[in-house]
């Protein structure tokens, strides 16, 4: 028999204890369904993304840029699309590339990325859906140099600013002396790079590059970060210390649009559309229940 002495439970109270696994299921569907049935809403590049694109567009053939891949596999979905887009943009302009990392989790991942995006062409002639200039396979120690990973976090960034060759013992990761690599002539410090492209998932990353070496050596930098780090880095974009910022998957999709090569970020943009709507639904639904429940509690209190 139900206890009649207790007031009947209001429906909002029952909904407050709503089994959250239904929300997990809804979020799961929001991720999977758009991948199977794409919506394909138009992607409009924002000023921060356009600025990052324009900073790379201003480079000339033969310029040398540094790409710092400070990330781990968890951030791959958000950061790899930007990496591939910017590498395509650099390669089709004939810009030379130096790759480093300050993250110990990064080397096997970035070695695969180098094999797939730098060693091999990303958009050879005849690539479907791509109308830009084709790129070519870059040759190791001729068109690009892989310096590898160095431990030391901010100390490593500081040392690269002061003495890049010393930081890597004067050798590329495959043991080739940097003095024997023609594209490294005149590249001794970070300020010798025309641009620093920071693909950054957290600490140390773009923020530490800005704080430790940007102002000191007056470096030109653009950065890509995960969506959660975007608000951390926007102050540096506003001050001009970062010339462009590509924050999260949505901005990576914008970058793909600017480069003209649709990739995984463009496909993932639909997931963002639906996923964000599910989060907004959860916020609104939760608050509607909360407000009705609060009003009901007041009424009961008044009675």
């Amino acid at each position: 028999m139900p206890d009649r002495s207790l007031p009947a439970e209001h429906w909002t109270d029952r909904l407050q204890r709503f089994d959250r696994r239904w929300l997990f299921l809804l979020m799961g569907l929001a991720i999977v369904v758009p991948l199977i049935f794409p919506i394909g809403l138009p992607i409009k590049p924002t000023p921060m993304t356009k600025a990052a694109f324009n900073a790379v567009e201003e480079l000339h053939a033969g310029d040398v840029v540094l790409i710092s891949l400070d990330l781990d596999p968890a951030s791959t979905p958000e950061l790899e699309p930007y990496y591939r887009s910017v590498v395509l943009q650099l390669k089709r302009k004939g810009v030379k590339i130096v790759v480093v990392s300050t993250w110990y989790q990064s080397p096997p991942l970035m070695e695969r990325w180098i094999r797939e995006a730098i060693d091999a062409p990303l958009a050879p002639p005849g690539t479907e859906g791509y109308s830009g200039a084709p790129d070519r396979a870059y040759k190791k120690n001729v068109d690009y140099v892989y310096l590898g990973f160095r431990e030391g976090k901010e100390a490593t960034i500081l040392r690269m600013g002061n003495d890049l060759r010393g930081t890597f013992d004067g050798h590329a990761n495959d043991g080739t002396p940097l003095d024997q690599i023609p594209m490294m002539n005149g590249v001794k410090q970070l300020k010798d790079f025309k641009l620093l492209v920071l693909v950054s998932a957290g600490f140390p990353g773009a923020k530490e590059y800005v704080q430790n070496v940007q102002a000191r050596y007056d470096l030109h930098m653009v950065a890509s970060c995960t969506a959660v780090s975007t608000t951390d880095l926007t102050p540096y974009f506003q001050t001009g210390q970062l010339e462009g910022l590509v924050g999260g998957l949505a901005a990576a999709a914008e970058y793909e649009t600017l480069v003209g090569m649709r990739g995984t970020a463009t496909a993932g943009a639909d997931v963002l559309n639906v996923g964000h709507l599910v989060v907004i639904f959860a916020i609104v639904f939760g608050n509607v229940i909360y407000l009705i429940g609060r009003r009901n509690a007041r009424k009961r209190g008044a009675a």
Partner: protein
Amino acid sequence: MKKLAPLALGVMVGLYATAEFYIPDWHVRALTSELQSWAAVIAAFAYVLGGVNLIQVNYPKIKRRERDWGYKVVMVVSAIVMLIAGIKWHKAFTAAPGGMVATATGGLPGKARVVIDAPDDVMVKVGAASAAPARVAGKAFELDVDPGKVSVRVYRRIGGFDEFTTELELQAGQIATVKADPAMLWGTQGRVYVWLYDHVFAPCNATMFALLAFFVVSAAFRAFRMRNLEATLLLGSAIIVLLACAPIGGAISDDLLDLKQWILDIPNNAGRRAIMMGAAIGAITTSLRIILGLERSHMGAD
């Protein structure tokens, strides 16, 4: 002396690190570079201490079969396996060359021929030609090239193996047979390490991050409440930024994008700057206390 020496060292290095910022001289730069390399060595040595600490903390708990001891076994075994996989054993035990080249005469007139004798799962790149499998249906890769210098790269499709590269100087009518079987590497670029990284570490790492989407939606439902004016403002901003951070925001209205940018540029940046400046002042204060010897907790003293 045990306390004074590290204190004096800290004061000296701290003062130097501050002063060198204002001294644009190459002697100072060289000394700074040396100190920074020491910092990197110290940071790298922390991994050794970390490894010792891992055993010290977990071994007694495993021995006593404390709660969750099974997970600790997995952690310690994983660390040991990665340590073993990360050592370059191939440098200690194998000295065989990665490949060899033999030349003979024959082939098309006015042309030279490159023949690759390698296993099925090997790829070949000769000169500017596209990469191709070394063997298709049992037939070895052959390519007729113009006489002169030609580069040859023989590598496996998957990472973690050695590769053989050579530069051939060929004359017309010459056939160069490149025999190569790229050996498995050990160390951080080796097959075992890369396999463990790709098939164990990467999926686990990505799974942990992916779970955030589900926690966020659950937290949005349960915790994001309009309890007061500040919470309501936060909630409204969150909805605008969430919408505008996906292409659907632009599809709804361009004004929404402008509003999002305003939120990021003005209120967000104002808050961020306040936090950053506060943290920076705190860091300067702590650094000064260490340099002046007032802060000694890093030496194990109060």
